[in-house]
């Protein structure tokens, strides 16, 4: 399986354009924010000191949460490609177990997604630094680095499930463009939760990847929030957290970090099994 993983990674990283385009999503959102969205949001909070750093961190947390989705999509393209170019016939006529092949695709996509979200985090921190914000403290950074493998797991298994239905690369690439566009809205990173209609808010709060977003925001925004809202009433902080999608409230229940971790783990298992079955049952 490791051998096949290695092969998939090599195939992915040799394709410079694939690597670039999978990161393009990240760069695009940062660019979008720098050029347009940032000002709009910051004008909403004129009374807050250091709003720029806070909002920057907010955007970066969002981006880092969706990066595994878009990049895993790119990495899984190898699986669809192999199937359509019938390269898999060569593997299937070899004495290698099917699960090792499927495992190789999944694991390599996972590694690509994880690496890319680390890259996204690094780029994001650079951006925050450049606009006068503070980089993550070591404690928050450590937590973030613990969250990433988990959020990547959930995202890449969801993508795995999604990919398991595709046979043609053309259909897949169209679908992945659509997903890439939608994902930012579905996780509430282009527009804060508070600015969305109630029904859409529910969609965002129920969408699994949003939980990675919330978890990352909770960790990454902790220090900037404390700084900006120093001396502010508790209710104001809470208001901010809810409208920015740091805390999700479902009726009377407010989800904490533990809930998000559970959701991410559950989602991973829930999507992984049918996807595995879906891919394994197909013969060439």
């Amino acid at each position, binding site marked *: 399986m490791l051998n096949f993983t290695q*092969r998939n990674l*090599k195939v992915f990283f*040799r394709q410079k354009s694939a690597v670039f385009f999978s990161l393009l999503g990240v760069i695009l959102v940062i660019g979008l924010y720098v050029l347009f969205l940032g000002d709009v949001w910051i004008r909403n909070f004129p009374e807050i000191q250091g709003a720029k750093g806070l909002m920057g961190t907010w955007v970066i947390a969002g981006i880092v949460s969706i990066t595994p989705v878009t990049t895993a999509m790119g990495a899984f393209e190898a699986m669809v490609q192999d199937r359509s170019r*019938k*390269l898999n016939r*060569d593997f299937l*006529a*070899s*004495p290698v177990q099917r699960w090792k092949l499927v495992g190789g695709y999944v694991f390599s996509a996972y590694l690509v997604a994880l690496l890319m979200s680390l890259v996204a985090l690094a780029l994001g921190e650079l951006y925050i630094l450049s606009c006068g914000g503070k980089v993550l403290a070591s404690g928050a950074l450590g937590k973030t680095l613990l969250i990433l493998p988990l959020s990547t797991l959930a995202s890449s298994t969801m993508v795995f499930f999604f990919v398991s239905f595709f046979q043609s690369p053309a259909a897949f690439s169209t679908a992945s463009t659509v997903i890439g566009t939608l994902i930012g809205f579905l996780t509430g990173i282009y527009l804060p939760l508070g600015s969305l209609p109630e029904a859409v808010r529910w969609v965002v709060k129920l969408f699994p990847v949003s939980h990675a977003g919330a978890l990352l925001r909770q960790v990454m925004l902790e220090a900037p929030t404390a700084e900006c809202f120093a001396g502010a009433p508790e209710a104001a902080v809470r208001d901010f957290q809810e409208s920015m999608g740091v805390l999700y409230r479902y009726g009377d229940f407010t989800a904490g970090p533990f809930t998000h971790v559970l959701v991410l783990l559950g989602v991973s298992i829930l999507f992984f099994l049918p996807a595995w079955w879906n891919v394994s049952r197909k013969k060439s």
Partner: protein
Amino acid sequence: MEKIIEVHGLQKSFGKVQAVCGIEFCVERGKLFAFLGPNGAGKSTTIDMLCTLSRPDGGSALIDGYELGKEDGQIRKSIGVVFQDSMLDPLLTVRENLMTRARFYGMGRRELRAAVRTAAGTADVLEFLDRPYGKLSGGQRRRADIARALVHTPKILFLDEPTTGLDPRTKEGVWRTITELQRRTGMTVFLTTHYMEEAAAADHIVLLAGGKVAAMGTPYDLQERYSSDRLCVKPKKKDEFVEFLIERGVPFTEKAGVFTMKLRHTVDALPLLQQAGDRVESFEVLHGSMEDVFLNLTGGTFQEVDGDA
């Protein structure tokens, strides 16, 4: 002679189209075996089944003593396959490709290197071992495909139309690689082709038409049975020669002053020529070719059947 492949009543249909309808044949160990047939005859479908890639609808096959469908893992270890299309990763070098594929066979690190080197040497790819597969020419790619199939020194090498789409010179080179390899290692080579000259070089041929075995035997056998020798004569005086032939009741065809007569046996030409004596200006006796066999046996069955890929 020991049989390495035995096929009994193998069948496969794709929807309503019966691609392979109950074929029977055996392949002897260490021989060059050719599967000849027009496009859509069911060659690739049969190869796919024997390589464990698609499940037969009926019938059985024994490959190197393992039963198809039950001991596929063992079969996969014993066979190497060169597919009709390229199967290696274009962005990786030939060496990387070979290493990746070799690891499928559970070799140790040292064994792996040696295996890759040997396979690369045999298939003559050493020259471009470290170049990306995608940048190679068609012939080089084909040789790399062969190296990949040889990487675990299989007992049977399947080649599905190995020379299709190559220019004549490259074709010849690839073909030489295959035959030399077979001669030197004594590996059983099973290939499909629609080139007569390749089939004629095989030890044994199965001619497939419309999913059925139309004929089998050595190339010589087939030529004896399904093609006839011809005597071509250019007479000094046409009218006189026509009269002579009609007198003896010999059927003939004439084209541009050359008379062609079918012969039951090659030596039948002798008495005829003797009797014709100096009516003959020049003559030649043509031995029946594989081409005749092919056309005779597949005549009228050149329909394309989907699912050959």
